[in-house]
Structures are given as structure tokens and as C-alpha cells.
């Protein structure tokens, strides 16, 4: 299907979703069947180009970036992230690791990377990070998440992540567990994923969000849920986000990665 036809379908899809939101949770599977594949594929294609393109003050590509399986290896790396990296002596998720490579290899500025990490289609703001993340993550499609927590810092990240998951604060007294620790719960009509009993949700991120007309990454979801909790903007790539992602991903071990998926 060509890009134009897909975008037209998406437009229709977007508005019908908005109308039917009140009635019944729309089955994204139905809509997905209309499309050959997720529109997120455009982000994967663009991400591939960006990954291999020379960029930044040092004018080099990300081809030497070590995402866990050696410089330049992208296949299967996402299935084992977050993981411990010796060079930084830290556990890192895909996005904080990519940011690290952009800074150390390409000489890019951290503040600028963070400022541009999330796209805003309504304001015509693009994100290279979202595209590169979509590309790298998609190179693990068909792989199953397999976090071993074999390094002590990985185990500590998991444990801290779970404590953060239950940590209540803010003007709503929410923790992540308030909404994501039981089966069959809904906020209005939106189904809430149960972090303790789910092998499909985490492996479906990054995802194309129909309501946002863009691909969203797990770092963006961490920002979004903290924002909904009425907490301040959590730092992009911060330890809190990484530990939460380690916890949620480990709980999803064995789930097969299929990205970018398509969601409401």
C-alpha cells in the first residue's frame, strides 16, 4: 500500500475512533487488519537512514554504537535491554543508550537531544529519537524478551524499579500500581495493562499512536503516566525511567517483540 493511501485510511480511522470512544473500546485489531502493516514502518525506514547517516559535530554515524552485543550490532539487542554497560557502569535502556552514543560518538548536545526526544505532530515537531528507536527495536521482531538480571546492578535496577512502581506521591496519591497491578481494570473505557500478568504489552512498544499520529516510545510512556499522576516531567533517560522499564520488561520476559505496533 502506498504512503498516501495509508495516511488517508489513518485519517478516517482517527476520526471514527474519536466518535466511537464513548461507545465501546475500538478494536485496534480490526483496524490493523485494514492495513498491511503498522504505519510505524515509515518511522522504521526513516530510522534506518538516520542510524546510518553521518551526523553531529563529529560527523559520524551510529554504526559504532554498542547496544549490548558489540559495536554496530542491532539485531536482537532490544530483546536484552535494559542491560548493564561496562563503559558507563550503569544499567541503560535503548533510549538512554542511544542518547549516550549520540553524545560520545557524534558529539551531540545532551540538552538538545532531550528537548527533541518527543515529537509533537500538532506543532510540526519531528523526533529523530523516535525514528531511530523504532528502527533498532524492530530489528528484534520475533525475538522474545530475555532479561537475565545476571549483573548485580541489573538486579538492583529491577528491585528499585518495582519499589518505584509502588511509590505513591503527588496530588492524586497514585503509584503505577494503583492502575497497573490487577487484571480487568479500566480508567473510563481504557483497558489498563497489568504489569504482573502480561507478556504482550511491553513487547508492543514502541507503537504507532493513532490519536497522536506518531510513533511513541517507552520513555514517552514513562513521561506520560508520570504527567497523568500530576508529577513533574521525569527526566528523559533518567534512572527512575530505566529502573521502571527494567522491572516491567523483566515481568514480560518470554513475550515476543512485534514493533512498531498500532494503538489508539
Amino acid at each position, binding site marked *: 500500500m502506498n504512503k498516501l493511501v495509508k495516511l488517508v485510511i489513518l485519517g478516517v480511522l482517527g476520526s471514527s475512533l474519536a466518535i466511537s470512544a464513548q461507545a465501546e473500546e475500538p478494536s485496534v485489531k480490526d483496524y490493523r487488519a485494514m492495513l498491511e502493516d503498522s504505519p510505524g514502518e515509515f518511522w522504521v525506514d526513516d530510522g534506518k537512514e538516520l542510524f546510518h547517516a553521518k551526523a553531529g559535530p563529529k560527523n559520524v554515524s551510529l554504526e559504532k554504537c554498542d547496544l549490548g552485543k558489540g559495536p554496530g550490532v542491532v539485531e536482537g539487542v532490544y530483546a536484552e535491554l535494559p542491560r548493564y554497560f561496562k563503559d558507563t557502569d550503569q544499567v541503560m535502556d535503548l533510549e538512554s543508550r542511544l542518547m549516550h552514543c549520540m553524545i560520545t560518538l557524534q558529539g551531540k548536545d545532551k540538552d538538545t537531544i532531550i528537548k527533541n526526544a518527543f515529537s509533537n505532530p500538532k506543532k510540526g515537531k519531528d523526533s529523530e529519537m523516535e525514528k531511530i528507536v523504532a528502527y533498532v527495536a524492530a530489528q528484534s521482531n520475533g525475538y522474545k524478551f530475555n532479561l537475565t538480571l545476571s549483573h548485580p546492578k541489573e538486579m*538492583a535496577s529491577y528491585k528499585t524499579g518495582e*519499589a518505584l512502581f509502588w511509590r505513591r506521591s503527588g*496530588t492524586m*496519591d497514585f503509584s503505577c500500581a494503583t*492502575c497497573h497491578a490487577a487484571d480487568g481494570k*479500566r480508567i473510563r473505557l481504557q483497558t489498563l495493562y497489568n504489569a504482573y500478568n502480561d507478556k504482550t504489552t511491553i513487547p508492543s512498544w514502541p507503537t504507532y499512536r493513532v490519536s497522536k499520529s506518531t510513533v511513541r516510545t517507552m520513555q514517552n510512556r514513562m513521561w506520560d503516566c508520570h504527567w497523568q499522576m500530576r508529577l*513533574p516531567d521525569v527526566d528523559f533517560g533518567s534512572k527512575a525511567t530505566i529502573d521502571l522499564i527494567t522491572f516491567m520488561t523483566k515481568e514480560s520476559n518470554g513475550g515476543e517483540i512485534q514493533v512498531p505496533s498500532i494503538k489508539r
Partner: protein
Amino acid sequence: MKKSTVKTWLASSTAAAMVMLSGISSGYATEIKGAAFDAETLKSAEQTVNESWTRSTPEERKRLVQDYSNKVCSAYKDKPTPELAAKIKQFNKELINYPQEGIKLGDWKNGAKLARSGYGMRIGKIHPDTGKKPNGGNCYACHALDPNEPAAGNLGPKLTGYGARGTSEPIMKYTYEKIYNAHAFYACSGMPRFGVHNVLTSKQIADIMAYLMDPKSPVNQKLKMMQNLNRNPY
């Protein structure tokens, strides 16, 4: 965790002040024995919070500080021991303020709007609420109320037909207190403490109470489909 570490940690948060005010002076160190997380993990979580919001203002970061109640609930994964649950409820009872004009029912029509609105209190640089609209209570996020409103969440129990409980003084008081501070009745409830955090004013609570309790409110009407069935001659 060493005792001294716990002390400095507590002293730096408002929780310490609140714990003392409410007469719960045993502190937090003894509370976390037997918690769902070990002391080291809880400490690591606090350090992680301290280093993960560096781009926010000090004012914004106040939202991350936990009071006694939230601290104990978090450490126990919302399942405190019966003794701690009693302490948490007592702590929360003491946080309730009452309206000078007394507890009254307000305007259910405005209450209906507030029950639907999730607006307010969002902060940060990316997408803050502007404060141009009143804060909502967002009851529908978690509760079914009007039987003819299908878009209702299920984190909390159904409140449809709540008005059947009447408007006696104890019911009025309970409903006000429950909305103001749900944790005074149910330790570690999933319901936000709307009064404690100034999300809702006492006038707004009165409007929402009317939405729950006024016999004319849609919350206390029958399901439309059922009424039609009643009219069916068969």
C-alpha cells in the same frame, strides 16, 4: 538501614512534621520492618527519585515528597498490617477540614460536570494544565455513577443509586469525609485524597455530593432501557 540515615531522610521531608503533629511518633524506621521491600531497596528508590527529576523546579519536586501515609502504603504494596492500617486511618482522619457553613448538598448539575472532568493539577514544561478551568474530580475514571453513562472505569465500586442511602447526618458526614480523604476509612485506598491536596474545594465537594445524593440527580435514576421495557405491554 542505619538509624541515623533514616532520621536525616525523614527530617528532610514534610512527612516527619506530619507524623509528629498527628501524635504518631514511633517514626518510620520501625514501620518498615516486615514491609514488602527491604530497607536497602526503599533507600535506593528514594535516591533514584532525587536524581531523576533534575530538570524540574524545587516547587514542582515537592509533589514527589511522600507523607507518612503514602510512605507506609508504598513500602507495604498497599497491604499494611492491621496495626499500621489503623495508624494510617487515624493519620488521615486528622487531615480532614470541615466547611464553616456545615456539610450541605450543593448543585448536582455542577457536580455532574466535576464528576466527568479530569482537568487540573498537571504540571511540567511539556503539557501543563493552565488552570483556566476548575479542577475536576474525575469520579468516572474509576466509578460507574449515572446508569446511562457507559464510559465509566472500574477501579472503584459502582456508585449508581448512591442516593438510596438517604441524607441523614451520618451519611452526609461520611460522604464529605470520604471525598475529602478516602484514606481515613480505607488505608491505602486507590482513591485520591481530593480535599487533602486541595484538588477540590468544599463547595465543589458539596456539588459532587448533590450529584451522588440528590434524588433528582441522574445517578439516582433508572437505566433508560429498563424504563422502556417497563412500558412494554408484554
